[in-house]
């Protein structure tokens, strides 16, 4: 049977084979997991169980439960002074993944150019291509801490670029941007009239300064689709609840697709998310404190054992260089797995600029992290 040309053209993930290797192995310490090691705070689980007992098992409105949209609206207002109407500017999605797909399909025409950073989270490039877009990869480099700058941006902006995908704090590098850095980027976005798709799912996990949503900067709200969700900060990955906020015409275009492809996000997840916003501030803070301690520990250990690693500003990832080992990143990851039973993700999985680096997730217990660092140290000797 012949599959569609557009799907056929999507590059298979280069590290599928490595993933299968990890999954087939026992007693591995995995630092390759892109989700929190905490389970969802109990108040959220308990509230969802109660809702199920009460019979909340139906569809919701396409846009999502009004109570949830209203709670998100208040949360963004309170936290960032970011104003989005729950009626016109917000859509509840099945995780941010769906929101990325919807927004790309809502804005891209066949052949429209879209800028995606390299390295970056794995879905932006293929999903843009599925939506008919032409992806232009903006190469960032370890030498410049993998940061986008106005200079890099301008290098890739040519006639016909319609939109840019921004993600910060960044999966896989952990990089984030200060308000000042974002302000400089925003001026370029405005100058070239770009739509900014801003995936800020790791916003709560920013450790050294307060996170600034790009939509809060002058002239940005009308050109930004703000994406966020509950997976990372509230440890709710499996609940699949994300949201998109933005100008009414884009949200309603996204809703048009969403109503036919997804209908609505799962109601159990939506009810859990309402409780998350209502009563989980302490749990979020506690997880964040724990992540921060692990971050300091792991960066210090990596540098000590000879893998150069900058202090990332956010997420639960570090992205150390393995260049001085002389191995490629896939090679390094495979050998580390075989010899020491520690799993990490090769940097090349996130784009060609990730070559020479590995992504280590410190969303794992301190005991695991200590043991894994000892094993990596042994591996390097």
């Amino acid at each position: 049977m012949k599959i569609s040309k557009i799907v056929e053209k999507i590059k298979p993930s280069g590290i599928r084979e490595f993933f299968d290797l990890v999954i087939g192995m026992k007693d591995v310490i995995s630092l390759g997991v892109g989700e929190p090691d905490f389970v969802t705070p109990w108040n959220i689980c308990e509230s969802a169980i109660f809702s199920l007992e009460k019979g909340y098992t139906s569809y919701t409105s396409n846009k999502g439960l009004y109570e949830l949209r209203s709670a998100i609206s208040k949360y963004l207002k309170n936290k960032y002074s970011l104003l989005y109407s729950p009626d016109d500017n917000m859509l509840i999605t099945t995780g941010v993944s769906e929101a990325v797909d919807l927004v790309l399909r809502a804005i891209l025409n066949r052949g429209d150019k879209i800028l995606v950073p390299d390295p970056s989270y794995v879905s932006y490039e293929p999903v843009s291509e599925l939506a008919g877009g032409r992806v232009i990869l903006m190469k960032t480099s370890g030498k410049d801490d993998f940061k986008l700058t106005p200079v890099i941006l301008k290098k890739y902006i040519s006639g016909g670029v319609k939109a840019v995908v921004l993600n910060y704090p960044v999966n896989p590098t952990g990089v984030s941007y200060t308000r000042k850095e974002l302000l400089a980027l925003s001026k370029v976005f405005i100058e070239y009239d770009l739509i900014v798709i801003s995936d800020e799912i790791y916003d709560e996990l920013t450790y050294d300064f307060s996170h600034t949503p790009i939509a809060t900067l002058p002239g940005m709200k009308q050109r930004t689709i703000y994406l966020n969700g509950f997976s990372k900060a509230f440890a709710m990955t499996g609940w699949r609840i994300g949201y998109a906020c933005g100008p009414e015409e884009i949200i309603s275009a996204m809703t048009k697709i969403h109503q036919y492809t997804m209908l609505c996000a799962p109601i159990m997840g939506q009810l859990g998310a309402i409780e998350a916003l209502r009563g989980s501030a302490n749990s979020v803070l506690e997880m964040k404190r724990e992540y921060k301690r692990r971050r300091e520990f792991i960066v210090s250990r990596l540098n000590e054992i000879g893998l150069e690693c900058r202090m990332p500003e956010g997420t639960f990832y570090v992205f150390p260089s393995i260049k001085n080992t002389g191995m490629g990143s896939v090679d390094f990851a495979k050998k580390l797995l075989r010899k020491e039973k520690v799993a990490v993700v090769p940097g090349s999985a996130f784009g060609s600029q990730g070559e020479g680096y590995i992504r280590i997730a410190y969303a794992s217990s301190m005991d695991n992290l200590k043991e894994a660092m000892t094993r990596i140290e042994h591996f390097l000797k």
Partner: protein
Amino acid sequence: MLLGQVFVNNGGDMKEILEILEKDARTTPEEIAKMLKKGVSAVKNAIKKYEKEGVIVKYKTVVNRDILKDDVQKVRALIEVRVAPQRGHGFDHIAERIYRFPEVISCYLLSGSYDLLIVVEGRDIQEVSSFVSERLTTIDNVNSTVTHFILKRYKADGDILKRIERNHRVAISF
């Protein structure tokens, strides 16, 4: 409660050491120093100071003996104690008379219908009973006691004693 913009700031504060040790007393000063971006000797000194001041009382291990099938199970009872406070000492003096017994493993002063809540441990029901009748109720100022034997411990001092399988995550994901 809505989430505010929250910062994690260590500053010069060494109190976070306590938080780390309360979670895992095995954490070494070297590891703590890395976690808090402090010097090892600064961390060691802070711990010494906490120990000297009695902020850190001691280090021990949380054990769930229920799992040891062949172990001789000890018996615990929660005992409500009504006492008459003493002039000049309030409840402290009488509380000390009681908590000095090694059989008493916890002792609290409470508001409400009784005064002291103590937890007593013994080899068996008889031992706990005789402690209550011979030692506790015979103390002057102890007016009455109510003994509740503990049937099962589910959670103690923040630790759930049943092992919860938490590793449901796929081994690798983006």
